[in-house]
């Protein structure tokens, strides 16, 4: 059997005071082609789990393995450039939309690559927007537009795994559909080597986007459905 792309092996996260567990002994192997919907009641630890996968927080137990290997400290930024976490309160920086899209290329890990406006414009075409959108001030965008820019900022970097934390939680139907299409398109380009985990409260959305549905309940991960 092929090596999982990303694997959580018995991970646990404690409450800050160390008195109780937010998450305990959770394991998950994510393979290429996996479109995983992660559901579960509020406070069940979905965000905590996703942040652990993105190595944004230290785990108190277990390990996160990238292509079957633990990621050494120095390589964490490189890992995060391939397994990208998108929070539901994605943050844009001051300046235009285009400035925000160029921002990742100023980081050491992406410095060998170049921002491509053509690439972005082709995405915008699909979304029914033109080049003018790039000149808008990020402060004047709606919640949906902000989320779309945040997603484009990530997708243009060709990540291998997307860790999406309720990316459409507060968005209208139309924008939700656009986000779903963007992710689906990114996934289908080289389907054989990509995967995503999508946290959602919406069962219908889980059906639409996923080929595996998991539920996190009381710190336990249950596989509900799998039809690859």
């Amino acid at each position, binding site marked *: 059997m092929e090596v999982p792309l990303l694997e959580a092996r018995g991970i646990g996260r404690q409450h*800050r005071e160390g008195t109780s567990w937010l998450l305990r002994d959770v394991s998950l192997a994510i393979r290429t082609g996996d479109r995983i919907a992660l559901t579960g009641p509020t406070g069940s630890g979905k965000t905590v789990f996703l942040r652990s996968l*993105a*190595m*944004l*927080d*230290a785990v108190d137990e277990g390990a996160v393995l990238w292509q079957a290997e633990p990621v050494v*400290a120095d390589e*964490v*930024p*490189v890992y*995060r*450039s391939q397994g*990208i*976490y*998108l*929070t539901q*309160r*994605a*943050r844009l*920086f001051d300046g235009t939309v285009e400035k925000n899209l160029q*921002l*990742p290329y100023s*980081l*050491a*890990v*992406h410095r060998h690559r170049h921002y491509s406006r053509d690439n972005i414009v082709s995405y915008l075409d699909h979304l029914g927007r033109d080049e003018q959108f790039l000149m808008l001030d990020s402060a004047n965008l709606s919640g949906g537009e902000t989320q779309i820019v945040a997603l484009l*900022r*990530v997708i243009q*970097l060709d990540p291998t795994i997307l860790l999406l934390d309720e990316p459409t939680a507060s968005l209208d139907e139309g924008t939700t559909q656009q986000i779903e299409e963007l992710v689906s398109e990114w996934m289908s380009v080289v389907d054989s080597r990509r995967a995503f985990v999508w946290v959602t409260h919406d069962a219908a959305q889980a059906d639409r986007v996923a080929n595996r549905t998991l539920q996190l309940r009381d710190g336990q991960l249950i596989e509900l459905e799998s039809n690859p």
Partner: protein
Amino acid sequence: MKSYVELSALQVGAAALLILVNAAISLALRLRLERSLLIASVRTILQLLLIGLVLQWVFRVEQIIIVVALLSIMTGIAGYTAFTRSAHAYTGMLLDTMVAVWASSWFVLAFAMFAVLQGSRSWHDPQYAIPLLGMILGNTLNGITLGLAGVLDGFRSGRDQIETLLTLGATRWEAARASIQKALTTAMTPIINSMMVVGIVSLPGMMTGQLLSGVEPMETVKYQIVIMFLIASATALGSVGVVLLAYRRLFNRHHQFRYDAIRRRDERRTRE
């Protein structure tokens, strides 16, 4: 002949009478400050007499160990004060503040004693070492406090930006840099401002003191110039030190931002 008027106890008492003006104002306007004024006056007299006695003894015995002990106590109090003034804290902050205050002030003091004041009798001559360190600490404390408070505030309020950068593959330094730069600018601004206006808006305390004790104005100016540079460099070193130490604690080797490690101080300790 002495070049200044030596004060008798009676003359000092005459100045103390001026506090009655404050008392009268407080009574007339019902400010209810009489009690505080009394305590403050008594403390002023007692504390200064006490430090006077200590200094007189230290100056007389002139032993390295005693001078170093006094310098250490002064530095320790300054470090602790910087630690208590921040509204937020993290585990290990007291040590970080102490290290920053200690390293910056003693480095600059050593430079002053060895490289600048070569005419003094020894590197630990209390006549120079103690007032110089006092002035360095008194002025750098502000910069260190501002730097620490600024960086903790920047990390807290900038959490979303910092984490957004980390998720995109930023190193911890790339993610923290904006907050660090802002905190250091804030920390350095007051000393730069006071260098801009020194001698125009007011005469610095040390210069005033030297003038009162009969030193030639041009001599006092030279000393003041030295002091300004000592303070400026100690402020820079101290605030950079404390900010970088805080950064090392709050961002671990795995490029993770330990937001939860910053906690709010309870009200009582903040006010102290």
